[in-house]
């Protein structure tokens, strides 16, 4: 199994990114490209559904951090959902849960970022 695979779905103007596996210094470029690809397409509402993300190191946090200003300057945001316990611990330990909106389920995040959409 590859260390990381990434699936992307578009729901309205929201890009839902589902990373599966591990985001570390070895795989972070693939993760960065997935994020940057959405921004280059003009999609500034990005939801990271982390249900299959086993862990994320500071390299992955840096990739998210590197884009947050760009998406917010364009009336978008990066949201997080379905965090496993250890992934939540990483975000929470660094205070990132104050910087990003975190939701238990994907539908809750979609309702928050695209309230006109019926879930």
């Amino acid at each position, binding site marked *: 199994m590859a*260390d990381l695979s990434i699936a992307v779905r578009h729901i309205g103007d929201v890009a839902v990114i589902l990373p599966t596996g*591990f985001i*570390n*210094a*070895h795989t972070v470029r693939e993760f960065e490209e997935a994020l940057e690809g959405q921004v280059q397409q003009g999609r500034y509402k990005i939801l990271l559904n982390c249900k299959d993300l086993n*862990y994320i*190191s*500071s*390299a992955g*946090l*840096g*990739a998210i*951090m*590197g884009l*947050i*200003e760009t998406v917010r300057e364009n009336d978008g945001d990066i949201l997080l959902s379905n965090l496993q*316990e*250890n992934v939540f*611990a*990483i975000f929470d*330990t*660094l*205070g*990132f849960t*104050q*910087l990003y909106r975190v939701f238990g389920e994907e539908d809750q995040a979609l309702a928050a970022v695209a309230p006109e959409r019926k879930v």
Partner: protein
Amino acid sequence: MAAKVDHAQFRLVIPSQTRYLNLVTGLAKRASLVAGLDDATAAKVSIAVDEAVTNVILHAYHGEGEHSVELELRFTEKALEIHIWHSGQGIRSDQLVLPDPKEYIKHPRKGGLGLLLMSRFMDEVQFKADAVSGRNECCLIKKIS
């Protein structure tokens, strides 16, 4: 009568390449469970080891993949110790400045979080230089409560 063995240890040497990170963090997690730590703590130890080994590969060796990183896991009654040795550019504990998470959130930027994660997830993080061998060491300690 044989001497009483009060600890166990073993070593692993990997090339300085990020492709082996997953192998090392998997080992660190399993070792943590063997040492008696719970699942959540084991996950934190594995992240700390990921950060420490990544620092060695990317910063001490500047991303050069032909060097070696040596890890030693020591199991004692009171703690799991993970020692990481390398021959690249070293840092000392007194040279470290950890980012303030509150300031970091106010002024987001890439980088600088690895050391913070290591210090938050482990009970002790030490950086040492061995003048005789010329090698540098990062020592991560997690106490077993």
